[in-house]
Protein backbone atom coordinates (compact mmCIF):
# COMPACT_ATOMS: atom_id res chain seq x y z
CA UNK A 1 0.00 0.00 0.00
CA UNK A 2 1.98 2.95 -1.23
CA UNK A 3 -0.58 5.54 -0.31
CA UNK A 4 -0.06 7.13 3.08
CA UNK A 5 -3.30 7.63 4.93
CA UNK A 6 -3.62 10.27 7.58
CA UNK A 7 -4.98 9.01 10.87
CA UNK A 8 -6.45 11.48 13.27
CA UNK A 9 -9.14 11.59 15.84
CA UNK A 10 -12.64 12.62 14.78
CA UNK A 11 -14.20 14.97 13.84
CA UNK A 12 -12.70 15.03 10.39
CA UNK A 13 -14.45 18.17 9.21
CA UNK A 14 -13.60 21.68 10.29
CA UNK A 15 -15.68 24.79 10.00
CA UNK A 16 -14.27 27.24 7.46
CA UNK A 17 -14.11 30.01 10.11
CA UNK A 18 -10.76 30.74 11.64
CA UNK A 19 -9.42 33.57 13.75
CA UNK A 20 -8.24 35.51 10.77
CA UNK A 21 -11.60 35.26 9.04
CA UNK A 22 -13.33 36.49 12.18
CA UNK A 23 -10.97 39.44 12.42
CA UNK A 24 -11.51 40.24 8.75
CA UNK A 25 -15.26 40.16 9.40
CA UNK A 26 -14.82 42.66 12.21
CA UNK A 27 -12.79 44.90 9.93
CA UNK A 28 -15.51 44.65 7.31
CA UNK A 29 -18.08 45.52 9.95
CA UNK A 30 -16.06 48.57 10.95
CA UNK A 31 -15.77 49.72 7.35
CA UNK A 32 -19.07 51.66 7.23
CA UNK A 33 -18.14 53.29 10.52
CA UNK A 34 -14.72 54.27 9.20
CA UNK A 35 -16.26 55.52 5.97
CA UNK A 36 -18.71 57.66 7.91
CA UNK A 37 -15.88 59.02 10.05
CA UNK A 38 -13.93 60.11 6.97
CA UNK A 39 -17.08 61.52 5.41
CA UNK A 40 -17.80 63.59 8.51
CA UNK A 41 -14.39 64.52 9.81
CA UNK A 42 -12.28 64.52 6.70
CA UNK A 43 -8.81 63.30 5.87
CA UNK A 44 -7.59 63.75 9.43
CA UNK A 45 -9.86 60.93 10.52
CA UNK A 46 -8.32 58.73 7.86
CA UNK A 47 -4.81 59.62 9.03
CA UNK A 48 -5.70 58.85 12.65
CA UNK A 49 -7.09 55.45 11.69
CA UNK A 50 -4.13 54.58 9.51
CA UNK A 51 -1.59 55.54 12.18
CA UNK A 52 -3.44 53.51 14.80
CA UNK A 53 -3.68 50.40 12.63
CA UNK A 54 -0.18 50.48 11.21
CA UNK A 55 1.46 51.10 14.57
CA UNK A 56 -0.62 48.36 16.19
CA UNK A 57 0.31 45.84 13.53
CA UNK A 58 3.98 46.87 13.62
CA UNK A 59 4.08 46.54 17.40
CA UNK A 60 2.59 43.08 17.24
CA UNK A 61 4.90 41.99 14.45
CA UNK A 62 7.94 43.19 16.38
CA UNK A 63 6.87 41.55 19.64
CA UNK A 64 6.02 38.25 17.99
CA UNK A 65 8.97 38.50 15.62
CA UNK A 66 6.77 37.52 12.74
CA UNK A 67 7.30 38.45 9.15
CA UNK A 68 3.60 38.36 8.45
CA UNK A 69 2.56 41.91 9.07
CA UNK A 70 -1.18 41.33 9.07
CA UNK A 71 -0.87 38.17 11.17
CA UNK A 72 -4.21 36.94 12.41
CA UNK A 73 -5.64 40.40 11.93
CA UNK A 74 -6.32 41.02 15.58
CA UNK A 75 -3.78 43.82 15.83
CA UNK A 76 -5.42 45.64 12.94
CA UNK A 77 -8.78 45.30 14.65
CA UNK A 78 -7.39 46.60 17.92
CA UNK A 79 -5.75 49.55 16.19
CA UNK A 80 -8.88 50.48 14.29
CA UNK A 81 -11.07 50.13 17.38
CA UNK A 82 -8.68 52.35 19.31
CA UNK A 83 -8.88 54.97 16.58
CA UNK A 84 -12.66 54.78 16.76
CA UNK A 85 -12.57 55.84 20.40
CA UNK A 86 -10.34 58.84 19.78
CA UNK A 87 -11.23 62.35 18.71
CA UNK A 88 -10.86 62.95 14.98
CA UNK A 89 -7.44 64.52 15.03
CA UNK A 90 -5.29 64.04 18.12
CA UNK A 91 -1.52 64.57 17.67
CA UNK A 92 -0.01 61.68 15.76
CA UNK A 93 2.19 60.59 18.64
CA UNK A 94 -0.79 60.26 20.97
CA UNK A 95 -2.39 57.82 18.54
CA UNK A 96 0.86 55.92 18.08
CA UNK A 97 1.53 55.58 21.80
CA UNK A 98 -2.06 54.45 22.30
CA UNK A 99 -1.56 51.68 19.75
CA UNK A 100 1.75 50.58 21.26
CA UNK A 101 0.23 50.49 24.75
CA UNK A 102 -2.86 48.65 23.51
CA UNK A 103 -0.85 45.89 21.86
CA UNK A 104 2.18 45.69 24.15
CA UNK A 105 0.60 46.25 27.54
CA UNK A 106 -3.05 45.54 26.80
CA UNK A 107 -2.43 42.28 25.02
CA UNK A 108 1.03 40.81 24.56
CA UNK A 109 2.14 41.15 28.17
CA UNK A 110 -0.66 38.80 29.13
CA UNK A 111 0.55 36.23 26.61
CA UNK A 112 -1.05 37.49 23.44
CA UNK A 113 -4.41 37.00 21.82
CA UNK A 114 -6.80 35.02 23.97
CA UNK A 115 -5.04 35.61 27.26
CA UNK A 116 -5.61 39.29 27.81
CA UNK A 117 -8.00 40.26 30.56
CA UNK A 118 -8.93 43.70 29.34
CA UNK A 119 -10.00 44.90 25.95
CA UNK A 120 -6.68 46.06 24.46
CA UNK A 121 -8.12 49.00 22.56
CA UNK A 122 -9.77 50.30 25.70
CA UNK A 123 -6.58 49.81 27.72
CA UNK A 124 -4.85 51.98 25.13
CA UNK A 125 -7.59 54.56 25.37
CA UNK A 126 -7.62 54.54 29.17
CA UNK A 127 -3.87 55.15 29.34
CA UNK A 128 -4.23 58.02 26.87
CA UNK A 129 -7.12 59.57 28.81
CA UNK A 130 -5.21 59.46 32.07
CA UNK A 131 -1.93 60.61 30.54
CA UNK A 132 -2.96 63.20 28.00
CA UNK A 133 -6.55 63.93 28.91
CA UNK A 134 -6.33 67.29 27.24
CA UNK A 135 -5.86 65.71 23.82
CA UNK A 136 -8.51 63.07 24.28
CA UNK A 137 -11.30 64.45 26.38
CA UNK A 138 -11.00 68.21 26.54
CA UNK A 139 -12.36 70.59 23.96
CA UNK A 140 -10.95 68.61 21.09
CA UNK A 141 -14.05 67.70 19.17
CA UNK A 142 -14.45 68.74 15.61
CA UNK A 143 -17.70 69.94 14.22
CA UNK A 144 -18.50 67.49 11.48
CA UNK A 145 -18.53 68.90 7.98
CA UNK A 146 -19.71 66.34 5.46
CA UNK A 147 -17.31 66.23 2.51
CA UNK A 148 -15.26 68.82 4.35
CA UNK A 149 -11.99 67.24 3.46
CA UNK A 150 -9.99 70.39 3.67
CA UNK A 151 -12.28 72.79 5.48
CA UNK A 152 -11.13 74.25 8.75
CA UNK A 153 -13.13 72.80 11.53
CA UNK A 154 -14.56 74.33 14.63
CA UNK A 155 -14.07 72.85 18.05
CA UNK A 156 -16.99 72.48 20.35
CA UNK A 157 -18.13 70.34 23.24
CA UNK A 158 -19.34 66.81 22.62
CA UNK A 159 -23.10 66.36 22.76
CA UNK A 160 -22.95 64.19 25.86
CA UNK A 161 -21.45 67.05 27.82
CA UNK A 162 -23.79 69.61 26.35
CA UNK A 163 -27.04 67.67 25.83
CA UNK A 164 -27.85 69.75 22.83
CA UNK A 165 -28.06 67.55 19.75
CA UNK A 166 -31.22 66.33 18.06
CA UNK A 167 -31.90 62.62 17.96
CA UNK A 168 -31.84 62.69 14.16
CA UNK A 169 -28.36 64.21 14.09
CA UNK A 170 -27.18 61.65 16.63
CA UNK A 171 -28.55 58.84 14.53
CA UNK A 172 -26.80 60.01 11.37
CA UNK A 173 -23.71 61.08 13.21
CA UNK A 174 -23.56 64.76 12.28
CA UNK A 175 -22.47 65.70 15.78
CA UNK A 176 -19.05 66.13 17.35
CA UNK A 177 -17.61 63.05 18.98
CA UNK A 178 -15.08 60.28 18.70
CA UNK A 179 -14.37 58.95 15.23
CA UNK A 180 -16.44 55.82 15.53
CA UNK A 181 -19.12 56.78 17.96
CA UNK A 182 -21.07 59.50 16.28
CA UNK A 183 -22.97 57.64 13.61
CA UNK A 184 -25.47 55.19 15.05
CA UNK A 185 -26.51 54.32 11.52
CA UNK A 186 -23.04 53.16 10.45
CA UNK A 187 -22.53 51.25 13.70
CA UNK A 188 -25.80 49.41 13.30
CA UNK A 189 -24.98 48.50 9.70
CA UNK A 190 -21.63 47.11 10.83
CA UNK A 191 -23.20 45.22 13.72
CA UNK A 192 -25.78 43.63 11.44
CA UNK A 193 -22.93 42.15 9.45
CA UNK A 194 -21.39 40.69 12.61
CA UNK A 195 -24.75 39.28 13.71
CA UNK A 196 -25.22 37.79 10.28
CA UNK A 197 -21.81 36.15 10.46
CA UNK A 198 -22.57 34.87 13.92
CA UNK A 199 -19.65 36.58 15.63
CA UNK A 200 -21.61 38.52 18.18
CA UNK A 201 -24.41 37.47 20.39
CA UNK A 202 -27.46 39.64 21.07
CA UNK A 203 -27.06 39.24 24.83
CA UNK A 204 -24.20 41.63 25.54
CA UNK A 205 -25.37 44.53 23.35
CA UNK A 206 -28.96 43.79 24.38
CA UNK A 207 -28.19 43.95 28.08
CA UNK A 208 -25.94 46.97 27.67
CA UNK A 209 -28.21 49.08 25.49
CA UNK A 210 -31.32 47.94 27.33
CA UNK A 211 -30.01 49.07 30.69
CA UNK A 212 -28.76 52.36 29.29
CA UNK A 213 -32.20 52.98 27.83
CA UNK A 214 -34.04 52.05 31.01
CA UNK A 215 -31.81 54.16 33.25
CA UNK A 216 -32.00 57.01 30.73
CA UNK A 217 -35.77 56.63 30.73
CA UNK A 218 -35.90 56.84 34.50
CA UNK A 219 -33.62 59.86 34.58
CA UNK A 220 -35.40 61.91 31.97
CA UNK A 221 -38.14 60.22 30.02
CA UNK A 222 -38.37 58.37 26.73
CA UNK A 223 -36.37 60.78 24.61
CA UNK A 224 -33.64 60.92 27.25
CA UNK A 225 -33.46 57.14 27.09
CA UNK A 226 -32.90 57.31 23.34
CA UNK A 227 -30.48 60.19 23.78
CA UNK A 228 -28.30 58.17 26.11
CA UNK A 229 -28.17 55.31 23.64
CA UNK A 230 -27.36 57.44 20.62
CA UNK A 231 -25.02 60.00 22.13
CA UNK A 232 -21.51 59.10 23.14
CA UNK A 233 -19.94 55.71 22.87
CA UNK A 234 -22.71 53.39 24.01
CA UNK A 235 -23.39 51.89 20.59
CA UNK A 236 -19.72 51.58 19.68
CA UNK A 237 -19.02 50.09 23.08
CA UNK A 238 -21.97 47.76 23.17
CA UNK A 239 -21.65 46.48 19.63
CA UNK A 240 -17.90 46.37 19.10
CA UNK A 241 -16.05 46.71 22.40
CA UNK A 242 -18.07 44.83 24.99
CA UNK A 243 -18.59 42.02 22.50
CA UNK A 244 -14.85 41.43 22.19
CA UNK A 245 -14.74 37.67 22.48
CA UNK A 246 -11.61 37.36 24.55
CA UNK A 247 -12.64 39.68 27.32
CA UNK A 248 -16.33 38.93 27.69
CA UNK A 249 -18.00 35.94 29.32
CA UNK A 250 -18.70 32.83 27.28
CA UNK A 251 -21.83 31.63 29.03
CA UNK A 252 -25.25 32.84 27.90
CA UNK A 253 -26.32 34.08 31.32
CA UNK A 254 -22.88 35.55 31.87
CA UNK A 255 -23.21 37.59 28.69
CA UNK A 256 -26.42 39.16 29.91
CA UNK A 257 -24.92 39.96 33.31
CA UNK A 258 -21.87 41.40 31.58
CA UNK A 259 -23.94 43.61 29.29
CA UNK A 260 -26.15 44.82 32.11
CA UNK A 261 -23.09 45.54 34.26
CA UNK A 262 -21.48 47.59 31.50
CA UNK A 263 -24.70 49.56 31.09
CA UNK A 264 -25.10 50.22 34.80
CA UNK A 265 -21.52 51.41 35.31
CA UNK A 266 -21.73 53.59 32.19
CA UNK A 267 -24.92 55.24 33.34
CA UNK A 268 -23.73 55.68 36.91
CA UNK A 269 -20.67 57.52 35.60
CA UNK A 270 -22.76 59.57 33.18
CA UNK A 271 -25.46 60.57 35.63
CA UNK A 272 -23.55 60.86 38.88
CA UNK A 273 -19.88 61.14 37.94
CA UNK A 274 -18.06 64.19 36.73
CA UNK A 275 -16.92 62.62 33.47
CA UNK A 276 -19.40 62.98 30.64
CA UNK A 277 -18.71 59.46 29.36
CA UNK A 278 -18.45 56.14 31.17
CA UNK A 279 -18.40 53.50 28.46
CA UNK A 280 -14.64 52.89 28.57
CA UNK A 281 -14.52 52.34 32.30
CA UNK A 282 -17.78 50.42 32.36
CA UNK A 283 -16.44 47.88 29.92
CA UNK A 284 -12.97 47.69 31.48
CA UNK A 285 -14.48 47.11 34.91
CA UNK A 286 -16.70 44.34 33.64
CA UNK A 287 -13.74 42.85 31.72
CA UNK A 288 -12.06 42.38 35.06
CA UNK A 289 -15.11 40.54 36.39
CA UNK A 290 -15.43 38.26 33.37
CA UNK A 291 -13.72 35.13 34.78
CA UNK A 292 -15.82 35.41 37.91
CA UNK A 293 -19.03 35.83 35.93
CA UNK A 294 -18.16 32.81 33.81
CA UNK A 295 -17.60 30.64 36.83
CA UNK A 296 -20.78 31.78 38.53
CA UNK A 297 -22.92 31.11 35.50
CA UNK A 298 -21.88 27.64 34.43
CA UNK A 299 -24.75 26.47 32.26
CA UNK A 300 -27.08 23.68 33.23
CA UNK A 301 -26.02 20.51 31.51
CA UNK A 302 -28.43 18.92 29.06
CA UNK A 303 -30.99 16.97 31.05
CA UNK A 304 -29.59 18.04 34.39
CA UNK A 305 -32.89 19.02 35.96
CA UNK A 306 -35.22 16.10 35.79
CA UNK A 307 -38.53 16.84 34.19
CA UNK A 308 -41.55 16.14 36.29
CA UNK A 309 -43.29 14.18 33.55
CA UNK A 310 -40.33 11.90 32.97
Amino acid at each position, binding site marked *: MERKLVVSSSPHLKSPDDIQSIMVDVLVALFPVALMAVFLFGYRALITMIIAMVVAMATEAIILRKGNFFGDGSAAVTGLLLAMTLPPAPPWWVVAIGSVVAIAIGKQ*IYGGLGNNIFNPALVGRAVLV*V*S*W*GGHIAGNVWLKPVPFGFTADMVTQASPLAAYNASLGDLFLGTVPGSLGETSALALIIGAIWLFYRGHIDWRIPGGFIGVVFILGLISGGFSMGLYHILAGGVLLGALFMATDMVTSPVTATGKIIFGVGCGVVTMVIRLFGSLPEGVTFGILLMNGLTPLIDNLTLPKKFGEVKKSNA
Partner: protein
Amino acid sequence: MSTLAQEFSKGIFKENPIFRLLLGMCPTLAVSITAINGFGMGVAALFVLLGSNLVIAALRNFIPSKVRIPAYILIIATFVTIVDMVLNAFTPDLHKALGIFIPLIVVNCIILGRAEAFARKNSVARSVIDALGMGVGFTLSLTILGIIRELFGKGSIFGVGVMGSAFEPMGILATAPGAFITLGIMLGFVNFMFKRLGIE
Protein backbone atom coordinates in the same frame (compact mmCIF):
# COMPACT_ATOMS: atom_id res chain seq x y z
CA MET B 1 31.44 30.80 53.07
CA SER B 2 31.09 33.44 50.46
CA THR B 3 33.53 36.25 50.27
CA LEU B 4 32.61 39.69 51.53
CA ALA B 5 32.49 40.95 47.94
CA GLN B 6 29.92 38.31 47.07
CA GLU B 7 28.00 39.17 50.21
CA PHE B 8 27.84 42.74 49.02
CA SER B 9 26.96 42.10 45.41
CA LYS B 10 24.21 39.60 46.07
CA GLY B 11 21.99 42.38 47.40
CA ILE B 12 22.45 44.27 44.17
CA PHE B 13 21.96 41.49 41.68
CA LYS B 14 21.03 37.97 42.65
CA GLU B 15 18.99 38.84 45.69
CA ASN B 16 17.96 42.35 44.79
CA PRO B 17 15.19 43.08 47.28
CA ILE B 18 12.87 44.70 44.75
CA PHE B 19 13.43 42.85 41.52
CA ARG B 20 14.34 39.44 42.87
CA LEU B 21 12.88 39.05 46.35
CA LEU B 22 9.87 41.34 45.80
CA LEU B 23 10.20 42.79 49.28
CA GLY B 24 9.23 46.28 50.33
CA MET B 25 6.75 46.77 47.51
CA CYS B 26 4.68 49.36 49.33
CA PRO B 27 7.23 52.21 49.46
CA THR B 28 8.48 51.13 46.06
CA LEU B 29 5.13 51.76 44.45
CA ALA B 30 4.33 54.84 46.46
CA VAL B 31 7.48 56.94 46.38
CA SER B 32 9.12 56.13 43.08
CA ILE B 33 7.39 59.03 41.36
CA THR B 34 10.65 60.91 40.87
CA ALA B 35 14.27 59.88 40.86
CA ILE B 36 15.12 61.97 43.90
CA ASN B 37 12.26 60.51 45.91
CA GLY B 38 13.30 57.00 45.04
CA PHE B 39 16.91 57.78 45.84
CA GLY B 40 16.01 59.46 49.13
CA MET B 41 13.81 56.62 50.20
CA GLY B 42 16.55 54.17 49.30
CA VAL B 43 19.18 56.04 51.29
CA ALA B 44 16.85 56.35 54.28
CA ALA B 45 16.21 52.63 54.20
CA LEU B 46 19.92 51.98 53.68
CA PHE B 47 20.74 53.94 56.80
CA VAL B 48 18.12 52.16 58.89
CA LEU B 49 19.20 48.80 57.54
CA LEU B 50 22.83 49.53 58.26
CA GLY B 51 22.08 50.64 61.80
CA SER B 52 19.72 47.83 62.65
CA ASN B 53 21.92 45.13 61.12
CA LEU B 54 24.93 46.48 62.97
CA VAL B 55 23.23 46.69 66.35
CA ILE B 56 21.38 43.41 66.00
CA ALA B 57 24.49 41.55 64.91
CA ALA B 58 26.40 43.07 67.80
CA LEU B 59 23.73 42.14 70.32
CA ARG B 60 22.86 38.81 68.72
CA ASN B 61 24.27 36.83 71.61
CA PHE B 62 22.62 38.92 74.31
CA ILE B 63 19.02 39.10 73.13
CA PRO B 64 16.96 36.10 74.27
CA SER B 65 15.40 34.56 71.18
CA LYS B 66 11.88 34.71 72.61
CA VAL B 67 11.86 38.48 72.74
CA ARG B 68 14.02 39.07 69.72
CA ILE B 69 11.23 40.36 67.50
CA PRO B 70 10.11 43.10 69.92
CA ALA B 71 13.75 43.96 70.50
CA TYR B 72 14.40 44.21 66.77
CA ILE B 73 11.34 46.35 66.29
CA LEU B 74 12.48 48.68 69.03
CA ILE B 75 15.90 49.02 67.47
CA ILE B 76 14.56 49.48 64.00
CA ALA B 77 11.95 51.98 65.15
CA THR B 78 14.63 54.04 66.81
CA PHE B 79 16.68 54.29 63.68
CA VAL B 80 13.61 55.09 61.63
CA THR B 81 12.61 57.85 63.96
CA ILE B 82 16.12 59.27 63.84
CA VAL B 83 16.03 59.23 60.06
CA ASP B 84 12.63 60.86 60.11
CA MET B 85 13.77 63.67 62.36
CA VAL B 86 17.03 64.25 60.56
CA LEU B 87 15.37 64.36 57.17
CA ASN B 88 12.76 66.72 58.50
CA ALA B 89 15.41 69.00 59.88
CA PHE B 90 17.83 69.06 56.97
CA THR B 91 16.01 68.04 53.80
CA PRO B 92 12.44 69.20 54.39
CA ASP B 93 11.34 68.90 50.76
CA LEU B 94 12.37 65.28 50.57
CA HIS B 95 10.79 64.65 53.93
CA LYS B 96 7.55 66.13 52.71
CA ALA B 97 7.63 64.08 49.50
CA LEU B 98 8.30 60.79 51.27
CA GLY B 99 5.73 61.58 53.93
CA ILE B 100 4.27 58.64 55.80
CA PHE B 101 6.57 56.20 54.06
CA ILE B 102 9.52 57.11 56.25
CA PRO B 103 7.81 56.02 59.50
CA LEU B 104 6.58 52.99 57.57
CA ILE B 105 10.17 51.82 57.03
CA VAL B 106 9.66 50.23 60.46
CA VAL B 107 7.47 47.58 58.93
CA ASN B 108 9.42 47.33 55.69
CA CYS B 109 10.00 43.62 55.12
CA ILE B 110 13.55 44.21 53.98
CA ILE B 111 14.73 45.58 57.32
CA LEU B 112 13.12 43.00 59.58
CA GLY B 113 13.80 40.33 56.99
CA ARG B 114 17.55 40.99 56.96
CA ALA B 115 17.62 41.22 60.74
CA GLU B 116 15.86 37.92 61.12
CA ALA B 117 17.49 36.10 58.21
CA PHE B 118 21.02 37.44 58.36
CA ALA B 119 22.15 39.74 61.16
CA ARG B 120 20.89 37.34 63.81
CA LYS B 121 23.27 34.65 62.63
CA ASN B 122 26.31 36.51 61.30
CA SER B 123 29.17 38.59 62.52
CA VAL B 124 28.98 42.35 62.71
CA ALA B 125 31.25 42.81 59.70
CA ARG B 126 29.25 40.46 57.49
CA SER B 127 26.00 41.99 58.65
CA VAL B 128 27.19 45.46 57.81
CA ILE B 129 28.30 44.32 54.36
CA ASP B 130 24.97 42.60 53.87
CA ALA B 131 23.10 45.73 54.91
CA LEU B 132 25.20 47.81 52.52
CA GLY B 133 24.55 45.44 49.66
CA MET B 134 20.83 45.19 50.29
CA GLY B 135 20.53 48.91 50.88
CA VAL B 136 22.41 49.79 47.71
CA GLY B 137 20.31 47.28 45.78
CA PHE B 138 17.13 48.81 47.16
CA THR B 139 18.33 52.35 46.48
CA LEU B 140 19.41 51.45 42.98
CA SER B 141 16.12 49.78 42.13
CA LEU B 142 14.04 52.63 43.51
CA THR B 143 16.16 55.18 41.73
CA ILE B 144 15.84 53.35 38.43
CA LEU B 145 12.07 53.17 38.83
CA GLY B 146 12.04 56.82 39.84
CA ILE B 147 14.12 57.81 36.82
CA ILE B 148 11.82 55.97 34.43
CA ARG B 149 8.67 57.38 35.97
CA GLU B 150 10.06 60.88 36.26
CA LEU B 151 11.48 60.88 32.74
CA PHE B 152 8.23 59.94 31.07
CA GLY B 153 5.81 61.20 33.68
CA LYS B 154 7.37 64.61 34.20
CA GLY B 155 9.97 64.96 31.47
CA SER B 156 12.89 65.44 33.85
CA ILE B 157 15.58 63.47 35.71
CA PHE B 158 16.43 64.48 39.26
CA GLY B 159 14.34 67.54 38.66
CA VAL B 160 16.32 68.64 35.58
CA GLY B 161 14.19 68.94 32.48
CA VAL B 162 15.65 66.81 29.72
CA MET B 163 12.84 66.22 27.28
CA GLY B 164 12.49 69.73 25.91
CA SER B 165 9.45 71.96 26.00
CA ALA B 166 7.53 70.12 23.29
CA PHE B 167 7.37 67.02 25.44
CA GLU B 168 4.00 66.33 26.98
CA PRO B 169 4.42 64.15 30.06
CA MET B 170 2.61 60.84 30.26
CA GLY B 171 0.41 61.56 33.26
CA ILE B 172 -0.37 57.96 34.07
CA LEU B 173 3.21 57.28 35.16
CA ALA B 174 2.83 59.76 37.98
CA THR B 175 -0.18 57.86 39.32
CA ALA B 176 -0.45 54.58 41.21
CA PRO B 177 -1.42 52.52 38.13
CA GLY B 178 1.69 53.88 36.45
CA ALA B 179 3.79 52.61 39.35
CA PHE B 180 2.34 49.12 38.97
CA ILE B 181 2.82 49.12 35.22
CA THR B 182 6.42 50.34 35.45
CA LEU B 183 7.32 47.89 38.21
CA GLY B 184 5.69 45.04 36.31
CA ILE B 185 7.57 45.82 33.14
CA MET B 186 10.85 46.18 35.05
CA LEU B 187 10.28 42.84 36.82
CA GLY B 188 9.66 41.17 33.51
CA PHE B 189 12.71 42.80 32.00
CA VAL B 190 14.99 41.82 34.90
CA ASN B 191 13.74 38.23 34.83
CA PHE B 192 14.27 38.18 31.10
CA MET B 193 17.83 39.47 31.45
CA PHE B 194 18.64 37.00 34.20
CA LYS B 195 17.38 34.19 32.01
CA ARG B 196 19.41 35.48 29.11
CA LEU B 197 22.53 35.64 31.27
CA GLY B 198 21.86 32.16 32.53
CA ILE B 199 21.58 33.05 36.20
CA GLU B 200 19.19 30.57 37.82
